[in-house]
């Protein structure tokens, strides 16, 4: 439904910055603090079908962003033969949704595998929604009589994408004609939804779906009760000594008392499929993004050529994920899956891992 009253939004941005250099430019600080208020932004509105329309566009969205950026430049060593430069930067932004519009208080901006990315009024921008693990007040999961965790009937907020900080560290060394660049980037905080992990559980291909349970028996062995009968799940107090299965602990959904079951690994891992609340991980990481080694051929050697300089450069990208919460999943490569806003990377949707590339470059200057 067209909205004839639609107007453009207004962005008000304030920025305060400081750039300091000391010690003959060998130490520099660059600091910026900014606030950005977006008001009356147009947003899509889903209307209930009985209005006769499916959706319209309305003004009214208010988003407040505050953030800072800090860059440090340091040159600890500077001699004729040896230079060492360090560039470090770190930034943070805190984006809050004050209002969506007069009609709705939340808007869905992306849909993934049984999960949504949603902006909620009066909350941080970028919430992940999906079926969640139901817990008691103390945060202990409820367990049903099938020996499985209980999930919410409706989508709930299960995470938020906003990081506490992002940054990078570049070290650059030059010794005579050789130079070496090491580039690291990192993020602290923020969450993402991992579909790879979920599919590894569902398919039984993940290494965490094998191994021994706390009785010392393989997880995938049949669950046995105390009389040796094969069952799908059994109360831990009643389990046979040779039983397989996964130990599932929590509180009973009916009585609220602590309870634990041994549940067949097939049922257990299958039950977690499409429950986004099980697959939210910390998006913090540290990554060695690039390493490059260069050599400039001495001027003397190329005197007779019509060239000013020749530089040969070996480099490698995507080298080493130094830290991430989940082994093998790189939070720096998560996707803006189905998002109407390309900037919001919120899910790792079982895409192929990024390639590691190696290269050789030759630069001729005339």
């Amino acid at each position: 439904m067209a909205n004839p009253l639609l107007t453009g939004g207004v962005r008000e941005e304030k920025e305060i910055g400081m750039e300091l250099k000391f010690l003959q430019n060998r130490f520099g600080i660059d600091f910026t603090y900014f606030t950005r208020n977006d008001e009356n932004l147009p947003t899509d509105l889903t209307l209930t079908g009985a209005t006769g329309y499916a959706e319209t566009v309305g003004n009214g969205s208010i988003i407040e962003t505050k953030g800072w950026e800090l860059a440090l430049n340091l040159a600890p060593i500077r001699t004729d033969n040896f230079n060492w430069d360090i560039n470090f930067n770190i930034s943070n932004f805190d984006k809050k949704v004050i209002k969506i519009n007069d009609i709705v208080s939340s808007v869905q901006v992306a849909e993934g595998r049984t999960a949504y990315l949603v902006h909620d009024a009066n909350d941080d921008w970028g919430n992940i929604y999906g079926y969640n693990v139901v817990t008691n007040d103390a945060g202990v999961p409820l367990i049903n009589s099938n020996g499985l965790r209980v999930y919410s009937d409706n989508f709930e907020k299960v995470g938020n994408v906003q990081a506490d900080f992002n940054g990078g560290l570049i070290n650059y060394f030059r010794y005579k004609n050789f130079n070496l660049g090491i580039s690291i980037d990192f993020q602290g905080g923020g969450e993402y939804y991992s579909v790879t992990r979920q599919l590894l559980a569902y398919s039984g291909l993940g290494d965490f779906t094998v191994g021994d349970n706390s009785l010392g028996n393989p997880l995938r062995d049949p669950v046995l009760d105390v009389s040796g009968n094969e069952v799908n799940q059994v109360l831990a107090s009643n389990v046979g000594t040779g039983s397989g299965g996964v130990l599932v602990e929590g509180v009973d959904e009916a009585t609220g008392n602590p309870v634990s079951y041994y549940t067949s690994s097939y049922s257990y891992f299958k039950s977690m499929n499409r429950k986004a609340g099980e697959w939210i991980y910390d998006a913090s990481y540290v990554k060695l993004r690039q390493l490059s080694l260069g050599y400039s051929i001495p001027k003397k050697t190329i005197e007779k050529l019509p060239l000013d300089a020749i530089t040969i450069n070996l480099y490698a990208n995507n080298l080493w994920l130094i830290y991430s919460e989940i082994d093998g999943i790189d939070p720096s490569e998560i996707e803006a899956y189905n998002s109407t806003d390309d900037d919001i990377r919120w899910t790792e949707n079982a895409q192929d891992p990024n390639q590691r590339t190696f290269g050789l470059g030759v630069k001729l200057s005339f």
Partner: protein
Amino acid sequence: MKTYSKIIQPILLSLVFLGCENVDFGDTNSDPDVTTTVVSSGLLTFAERYIGDVVTDEMGDLYTQHISQITYTDGSRYTDLSADSDYLYQNPLINLKTIIDFNSDEQYTLEQSAYGSNANQIAVAKILMAYYYQFMTDRWGMMPYTEALQGTENTYPVFDTQEAIYDGLFTDIDDALALIDDGAGPTGDILFGGDMERWKKFANTLKLVMALRLSNIYPDPSGYAATKFNEAIPYGAIASHAETIYYPFLSDDNNDNPWQDNFQTREDYAISDVLIDRLLADNDPRIAVYAEFTRTSVSLGSPEYLGMPYGIPNSEWLAADVSFISSDVIYESTAL
């Protein structure tokens, strides 16, 4: 360190405000591909096309167990309960409301009279809306009705009770009948070609059907249902088979009978054993209208009817072994 005193760069401070003026964009925002005036004949045709969907919806036939699914039996086991009503509000009903709005607004009445007299257009739109609302409340119970179709004016329309909707629809139909004048009928009318006499019959028949639906709630011979029923008769509900109202499907694929599509490449539906067994037990001659002999029995030289068992979870029945819906029902026009 002495050099610390050599702070060379001054503190940089900046404060930036950005804004934008109201600008006249000329015709940038006018879409050259859309009409700027309301063509109510087009709205009417569009709205009437959904009758084809309503009368061929399989859910009613399945849930009353008149037909049964042969191989994939989910529908007949009540697994598809969450069908939604939005498509009716968002397509036929809002179009019909637009016809009413524009034919009632003095600013547009002259322009709209090109598509039939204003009163007749409003009457036809009201009758059709009543038809859709009755179908909807029969199927879904409580529905937004009095506050529906108001766009952003009312984004949370209340749900009216079935009783209130029926009450309102009787009034709507009476209003529509009272509006009909001697002017031209609506153009774009694929049901009756703008024949207002036929619309009167349609409206009174609709009233009759609604009264029948209420007859178990108001069984009294002088009660609500009977009163409405008796009101409809003298004003001319359909009185003979010749007056049966059909939705005119066409032969091209965009406008053909969806039931025909169901049987074009597949054989998913047969007459249910519930209906066949009852018709056989009663020696009911209508069986020949609804059903065909099973193909297997015909090829063995002893034609017989056999209904498809209803709602079985894992079916291994063959289409040749059960009675099909008669080709008259599938391929001919479908009565409203």
